[in-house]
């Protein structure tokens, strides 16, 4: 593979890693909200 090809691969690798990290952030924030809602409902006797 040429140097340009390897550079492109690295760019693509970093792009995928960034996208995965963002998705993980969204999942973790969603979990915080979910646990908060569950706690509220359970405390109110639901």
């Amino acid at each position, binding site marked *: 593979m040429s140097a340009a090809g390897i550079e492109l691969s690295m760019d693509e690798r970093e792009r995928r890693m960034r996208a*995965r990290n963002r998705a993980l952030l969204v999942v973790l924030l969603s979990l915080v909200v*979910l646990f908060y809602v569950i706690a509220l409902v359970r405390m109110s006797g639901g």
Partner: protein
Amino acid sequence: MSEHPTTATPYLGAMVGDYIRILKPRVMSLVVFTGFVGLVLAPGHLHPALAAVAVLCIAVGAGASGAINMWYDRDIDAVMRRTANRPLPAGRMLPGEALGFGIVLAAWSVAIMGLAINWVAAELLALTIAFYVVIYTIWLKRRTPQNIVIGGAAGALPPIVGWAAVTGDVGWGAVALFAIIFFWTPPHFWALSLYRAGEYEKAGVPMLPVVAGPRETRRQMLLYTLMLWPASVAPWLLGLAGPVYAAAAGGLSVLFTVFAIRVWHDGSDRSARQMFAFSLLYLFLVFALLLADHIGFGFTGIGR
């Protein structure tokens, strides 16, 4: 089976979409829908937010099963055209990533179901995941043509999980919903395997058309559609749905049998494909009818 992809290009890491793909979203949608119907039909009350959490747990549990299934089946997936582009055989994801993802999701779904809803539903969800992964994927799939008959129980359990989320136990109504999916699964899968028999044979999976031939498969498909008749009207017999549901579900079951008779008679790939497509519609419509009947779209009757 190697840990690293063997493609010539360097490993770039999985895309976010690949993590969604290994959850088998199409299978998950049917599981979620049938689980939701089980939850709605169950006697009792569950706070809407908790009901949403229960459905989420069922969805995540189903996805976890799919991910672990893809991890285990990556060698035969690579052989079959239908599955060759899945993230693992295509080399876009490492086996360990898929397995770890599946195990984490499975543990998460069972734990949240237990902590937020109840532990009976959590145990049933754990049983569903274990049945699909261990009994179906690891034990039966590569050993017996009855793989999808016995393994089909895993796909039939979600309404029971939904039901138990509300009641904390398993009622006869839940068993009736289980029976519908259980008897529906063999003709549904065998319709697919009839026109994919070559691929299954190449992969060494002993699906019924590969082992017993298409004629025996078509005969058994017809028998299972007949067994579906009493199962489909069982919710009415148990007072879970009204007579309009019974008439509609009975009619759909007759139509399903007509498709099976067509497959039995002409034996073409075309009729098998049509039966497969109708089987998906059948299950969706039967459960949608149960839902509509319960909500009360003029379906309620003396059977309740």
